[in-house]
């Protein structure tokens, strides 16, 4: 029997700084045949410190490596930030349900990210760049605390060729990006009602963004949010990530609003 908790060795091929507190790690594939879909996550581990989950941020069909972007917030992420090119870390996964990008084929796509919520959406952006005709129009709405925290800044010129990139900041220091939360952008832009929205960010963002998107005529089954929870096993057993009758690790992390709206405890417990 395969031991589902077994972690596989993965070599750090490259480390790149993203803004002031994050780093993108390019990792060798943990095992032969590793593949993932956008929105899925892996469990990264450092012996002695344990495991934590990270959304895979690289292009879907990369046969040689995967990327994760890590913000330094706790013990494990701090140690990850100390790792250098050539070091080994543990990876198991990928786990979870992905964003249903096939449903969005030929349609308008809204990608809404808050802060460190951008990495799991990056595979969709890279997919749109690779296949420009796959989606009708891809609009990115990215809200961040301040300019120094923006991720993937070097790629924006490439993104802009295919996508419509909109950034807002809570505390702008220059006039480059406007001040405000992401929802303010929805009033300035024409949001097509037939669009599929894929979101990743803090719960408070979901609350307001969903409200706005419903106002704009989007259907609940076309709005998808990725939830963050404490996860230990990744198998839907250990109960840490449970919400209602779902397990975020197995049934999620991506849920449609149609699934979430039926019970009270998804944004915060009862």
């Amino acid at each position, binding site marked *: 029997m395969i031991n*589902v908790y077994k972690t596989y060795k993965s070599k750090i091929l490259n480390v790149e700084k993203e803004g002031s507190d994050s780093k993108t790690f390019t990792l060798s594939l943990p095992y032969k045949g590793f593949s993932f879909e956008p929105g899925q996550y892996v469990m990264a581990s450092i*012996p002695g410190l*344990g495991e934590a989950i990270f959304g895979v941020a690289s292009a879907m069909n990369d046969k040689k490596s995967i990327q994760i972007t890590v913000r330094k917030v*706790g013990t494990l992420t701090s140690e990850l930030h100390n790792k250098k090119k050539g070091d080994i*870390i543990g990876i198991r996964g990928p786990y979870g349900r992905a964003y249903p990008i096939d449903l969005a084929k030929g349609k308008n796509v809204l990608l809404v990210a808050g802060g460190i919520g951008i990495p799991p959406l990056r595979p969709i952006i890279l997919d749109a760049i690779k296949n420009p005709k796959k989606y009708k129009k891809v609009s990115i709405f990215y809200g961040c605390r301040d300019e120094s925290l923006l991720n993937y800044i070097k790629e924006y010129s490439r993104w802009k060729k295919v996508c419509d990139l909109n950034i807002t900041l809570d505390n702008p220091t220059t006039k480059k990006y406007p001040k405000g939360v992401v929802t303010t952008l929805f009033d300035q832009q024409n949001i097509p009602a037939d669009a599929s929205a894929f979101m990743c960010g803090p719960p408070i963002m979901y609350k307001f963004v969903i409200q706005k998107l419903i106002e704009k005529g989007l259907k609940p089954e076309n709005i998808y949010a990725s939830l963050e929870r404490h996860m230990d096993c990744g198998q839907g057993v250990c109960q840490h990530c449970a919400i*209602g*009758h779902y397990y975020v690790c197995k049934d999620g992390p991506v849920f449609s609003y149609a699934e979430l709206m039926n019970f009270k405890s998804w944004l915060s417990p009862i």
Partner: protein
Amino acid sequence: MTKNKFQQFVKFLLNNNLVIAPQYNVEGYLHLAELKNVKDLYLGTELPMDSWKWYFLPPEQKMFDYYGQNFKESLPKIKSQILLGVSILDLQALTLLNQVFEKDTYYQEIKKKTIVIGTSLVPKENFYKYFAKFEEDKLEHLQFDIFLAVQKGDYKIYTGSEDGQRLLDKFGYKNYQHIEYAGSIREEGLDQQMLVIKDGMQNYHNQKIWDDLGKRCMQCGKCTIACPVCFCFRMFDQANLERDSGSRNRCWDSCFYNEFTQVAGPAPTAPKHRLMTITSQKIYFWYEHHFVRTPASFSLPGCVGCGRCTRTCPADIDIFQTQRDILKAKQRKK
């Protein structure tokens, strides 16, 4: 099997086997412990304080040893064990655990080496109505190796696995009936009591029940330890004293503890973001696991009505009263 013959059977089991069975300890509590002497064995309607999960899911378990970056699987080092006198309620609990941990290497390794001997004895006051009366056709939906149906003056013997048959054959007893496990779902469909309470929790939410419980519960987590179907666990690494080696382990966790839903930390500067912060949320989560999530994921009741949580609760929270309250709230709203 006559009572006399059964005594001989237990003696036969004690010969060369580790037998775990309910026994009264010196303080007068019924506990599970290694059986040394046939006369210590308690076979009756009272349920032991602790549940049988201790012997399938040890409170702490090593999963891997690591040396540098290399992880090596560390399987539980147990010899074969015989669990004797498992009430039919607890068999229902084990049947659920077997499903939950179906793909779990560690659980399955222990299961392989364990013989479960069940009994039809249940407490006189039992909230789970299905098992209030023992009937033979209920056995095919439970997982066990040997089963003792208590009749007037003797036991009727059933076997549920080849291991059980082999053991009886070795003892020299042939008069048993074999029951083939037919899956956990019964012919008549899902358990009605389970469905009614699940519907009550999901569709007739009454916040007052949970606010009241939140005021009484002191988050000690004893119910989660006592419960035979509470199986939450947490994984953690333990470093050895020598550099670059240690183990990855798991231990029981409790949804009543503060760190249960913490998503960042515990570095002093890290934001401690916790999803469940107040008691009523935690106790709701606990009930939600047993009465909503388990039925939804496994189509099996997440509570077997053993009442261990009620017995152990220092705040006297009665799970059966809470179930009645859920049903009352449902009736009122209908």
